[in-house]
């Protein structure tokens, strides 16, 4: 699947949305946004986000990669990397 970073970000916002109580925070998301400290996402929901992202992008996110998903930028890096792996012949 070929998706540019902006397109991935738009889809990622949809993945994050159910886990953000204050919807105003959703509007202000940028690459530097931290999932826990900025978006106030509960740690239990971080695992939900990983499996929702797996479904959304048809990828598998291993434990080592999930560990890197601290900021939105980190999430985009991981998703891009996994998408690139799945598109390889």
């Amino acid at each position: 699947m070929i998706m540019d970073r902006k397109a991935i970000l738009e889809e990622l916002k949809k993945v994050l949305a159910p886990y953000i109580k204050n919807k105003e925070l959703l509007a202000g998301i940028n690459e530097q946004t931290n999932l826990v400290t900025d978006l106030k996402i509960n740690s239990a929901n971080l695992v939900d986000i990983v499996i929702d992202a797996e479904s959304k992008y048809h990828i598998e996110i291993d434990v080592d990669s999930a560990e890197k998903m601290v900021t939105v930028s980190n999430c985009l890096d991981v998703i891009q990397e996994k998408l690139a792996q799945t598109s390889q012949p």
Partner: protein
Amino acid sequence: MSALPLGLPGAGIDIVDLSLTDPARSERLAPKMLAPSEYALRPAEMSFHIFLWLCWSVKEAVYKFRRGTFFQPTRIVLDALNRVGDLHVRSVVTSDYILSVVDTPGLVFEVAPLSGDPSEEVRSLIKKGFPDWERRPVSFSHHGRYMAYSLQDADGSRVGKTDYAKRKNLV
């Protein structure tokens, strides 16, 4: 620099509001939350859903006790449902929530309903019993309808302020 008294053990507590967990997702969540060796720890009478979130809460409590910087659940491995390495963890499982707390001398913990801002309410709660709480090792947790704290009490005389009437199973 830590403001906590030297020589005292830390504190670690976690609460899971079960109404915010979905049994239908347990199988998919499990590989992200459990180490392979932990599956064998499930008692026959315990549902996989409860087992999963019990393990999670134990791991979170231990993580907070160790004052980690990033919680990766599969890296904290339970040796038993109430033990991680040399840490003993007490857990309360009710039909509404699961609470886990690292056991230490003089342990005090309390659970209460949450209706507003979690950080304000839990500090208000702890201040009532312990005006000097900021000078103690303390841990906070909140999830959904509940908040909880644990701390070290010098004489341990006020252990277990949580609502034991609702307790169904103490692991």
